[in-house]
């Protein structure tokens, strides 16, 4: 039997400055550990990847700010992953790290997809998010990518920051769509208030639910008009540019967790590594396990999890898995789902209420195969 497709997630927890909304595991004070950290990631990969696993379908450098690594450091990790040309190898980067040279170096290191955190082009919005960004960020990206032959790339946006007007958001989106080469993939997140962040402590910067809903509705119709297709609640792509790595997450696929705070999944067992950079490095260096926690899902939990994840995507779930009468009673701005090839797929309204819709997944269909 052919080995199951799997991915590798590598967490790079180093940032220059912390953004005010950020709750990721990252540090601005451990740059001196970067070298040892890269060594540890390589060591962990060599230790945990089995020959029988075969070539990873995807590799994803997330952060933190992975673009702070040198091309050489990235290459060592990619090599240890055993990635090949067939693999999708993505690196998250911050715009200020992108130059024609770094893009060239990353490509040479085996990166064939970039995910660029722009969030907004509007200075007042970035200020409200507490995020620093270079001026004329989109031009900079165009120049950096001009000569590259990346297979694909993604651009991240955040909407609903307190200082953001409808016009601000439209300006960001229109300028992105007007780029010389449009991003083949777009992610847009509604700003959420994460406990412990500076924004959480500042109610004046909390997002407004109605504004976020308005922007989501507008964004979806604008992107569809521009030829993008909804892939998952917060992802849109041009045909053929879906992110394979994310789709592993959403289809219950397996992925290895490399680095501090990385999460992994293998066949119903979810686990996560220690959130401390030092403890992670020490664990790897002493041959100990970096895993800090794990859970093995019951079959019920697995069913519920994969159903809720699938529900968020363009694939949807089998039509009869939902209690449609129950859903209809709650619809006030149009239907939540449409019927597509025997499956229920969320409409824009349904996506706005995906959590609510998930409550209408019918437990009795759990038995038997849960293949989605």
């Amino acid at each position, binding site marked *: 039997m052919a080995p199951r497709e799997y991915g590798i*997630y590598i967490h790079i927890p180093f940032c220059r400055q912390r953004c005010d909304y950020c709750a990721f595991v990252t540090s601005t004070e451990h740059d001196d550990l970067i070298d040892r950290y890269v060594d540890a990631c390589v060591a962990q990969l060599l230790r945990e990847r089995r020959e029988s696993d075969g070539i990873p379908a995807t590799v994803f450098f997330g952060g933190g700010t992975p673009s702070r690594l040198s091309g050489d450091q990235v290459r060592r990790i990619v090599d240890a992953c055993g990635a090949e040309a067939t693999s999708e190898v993505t690196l998250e980067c911050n715009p200020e790290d992108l130059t024609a040279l770094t893009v060239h170096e990353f490509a040479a290191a085996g990166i064939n997809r970039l995910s660029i955190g722009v969030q907004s082009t509007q200075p007042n919005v970035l200020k409200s998010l507490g995020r620093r960004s270079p001026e004329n960020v989109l031009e900079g990206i165009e120049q950096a990518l001009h000569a590259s032959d990346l297979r694909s790339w993604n651009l991240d946006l955040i909407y609903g920051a307190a200082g953001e007007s409808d016009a601000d958001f439209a300006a960001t989106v229109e300028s992105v769509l007007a780029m010389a080469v449009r991003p083949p993939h777009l992610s847009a997140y*509604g700003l959420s208030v994460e406990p412990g962040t500076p924004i959480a402590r500042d109610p004046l910067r909390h997002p407004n639910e109605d504004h976020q809903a308005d922007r989501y509705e507008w964004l979806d119709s604008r992107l569809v008009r521009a030829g993008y297709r909804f892939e998952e609640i917060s992802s849109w792509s041009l045909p053929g540019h879906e992110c394979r790595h994310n789709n592993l*997450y959403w289809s219950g696929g397996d992925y290895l967790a490399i680095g501090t705070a990385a999460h992994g*999944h293998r066949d119903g067992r*979810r686990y996560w590594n220690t959130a401390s950079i030092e403890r992670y490095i020490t664990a790897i260096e002493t041959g100990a396990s970096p895993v800090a926690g794990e859970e093995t899902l019951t079959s019920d939990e697995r069913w519920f999890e994969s159903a*809720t994840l699938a529900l968020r995507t363009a694939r949807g779930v089998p039509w009869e898995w939902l209690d449609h009468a129950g859903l209809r009673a709650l619809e*006030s701005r149009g239907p939540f789902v449409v019927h597509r090839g025997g499956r229920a797929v969320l409409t824009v309204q349904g996506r706005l*209420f995906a*959590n609510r819709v998930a409550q209408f997944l019918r437990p009795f269909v759990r038995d038997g195969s849960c293949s989605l």
Partner: protein
Amino acid sequence: MASTPARIDQSRIRNFSIIAHIDHGKSTLSDRILELTGAVDARLMRAQYLDSMDIERERGITIKAQNVRVNFRDHILHLIDTPGHVDFGYEVSRSLAACEGAVLLVDASQGIQAQTLANCYQALENNLEIIAVLNKIDLPAADPERCAAEIEQVLGLAAEDVLHISAKTGEGVPELLQAIIDRFPAPTGDPDAPLQALIFDSAYDQYRGVVSSLRIVTGTLDSTAKLRFLQARQDHEIEEVGIRTPDMVPVKSLGPGEVGYLIAGIKDVRAARSGETVTTAIHPAESPLDGYLDPKPMVFCGIYPIDGDDLPVLRDSLDKLKLNDASVTFEPESSHALGFGFRCGFLGLLHMEIVRERLEREFNLAVIATAPSVSYRAYLTDGSLLSVDNPTELPDPSRLDRIDEPMLKITILSPAEFTGTIMELCQARRAELQRMDYLSPTRVEMAYTIPMAEVVLDFFDALKSRTKGYASLDYEQTGYVTSNLVRVDILINGESVDAFSTIVHRSQAEFYGRRMAERLKELIPRQMFDVPIQAAIGGRVISRETVKAKRKDVLAKCYGGDITRKRKLLEKQKEGKKKMKSIGRVEVPQEAFVAALRLED
């Protein structure tokens, strides 16, 4: 092993209560007495030693009176530390009934306050000997000369007899103890007469059952006797008789004038209430002692278990609480919004808050209290009279002839400079000035009658904040008067939510309605449709707010590390739905009701 001298010489016993306005230092003085007499080992000493409940220690106030026996210069002293807050005046009156003397403590930096007067009058009514004591003389702001003059002028106690102490440093405390021996009378009572002992306090201990504090009036309580409880008409075997030193020490017998505790294996909390007279089954006394009048509750509210399954536990807990706090009343009631619970009566707002907190802590219950109400009298058009302490029981306006509300006579003591401010406040609260006296050139005493409902709202806080904390307040109930009252109902999506109905003066109806609707608008989570919140009198809407329909739930990303969190969130939401109360189609988390009601405090 039980041990005690065969018979204690009565002339060497002194029984007294320490009384004062709140915070004037009663418990701190008790500390010094425990220390000075060696009752508590220095290593184990801590501030306000006798305040043993968690709530007392946290809030720094005494709630329950505590008695303890100490030895000083060949004498046995029974002291009772009493609470100073006006809500607990009942504790003071019960304590005074077990004593011959009262130590009246006055903070020398504050002088006479409202409860100084009220408690002093109570002691005089009980014919107790009073020793006036100025405390806190170590404070730079202390002005003992002025305070002593005030005591003489206002209370008629000679300034030269007033003692000066610092309960903090201990200065003057030995002299005070000597004065207690010299000036308070020893108890009298025939040790060979039939037993009459007064239970002045009872508490429930989960291991030992009911533990009662009692004072022997006549006769001797022998630990082998079989007891008869005269009012409850029950006989009980004694398990243990003892004294509090403050540790509980068993003794063989207690003679006249002695104070101690009694454990008689009583499980039913109603069988050993304070005010009960205990005698022996073999030679019973002919008549009981004067018991206590159960105090009349002033403030009522519904108390509901947050988890409906806890209803029997709540009932049991209230029963037990009532044993050491006879002033709480309760009877079953039900609410659409909150399920089954109890309508409870309290002596005041602090009392209500404390009872709720004790239920939560000591009995491990999660409860919610509805808005406080007083007890109204509704006269119906058919001539009948209905007593209404739950606003939802008020009949429809068409059936009402009139409503009377309970009044209070309040006494405010304040520095004279605040007279104007106080008058303004009282006027705004429908109060009528009865009398105003200058106790001294700088201190004024004002007497008002005021609707009890106004005081229950937030009068005390308003008074404190407008007088920078300098004014103090005492009150007593005084009859009913007819008033222009209406019931305001709160409707969520057209359905009235009984927990929020309230009876208010017509002039305040709109204010209450608007405030409650605004508050609920903030607290009720957005639903999948617009939800109107209305305040109404009868069928007439006086205020309206709308909780706009929800637009989205979560729009955050969902990657590898988010999956577990997401699943747990969704699972929890499923669970959470069960904890929602439905008001028609509207799902409201219990917490929203709780928060709306809590904010009312």
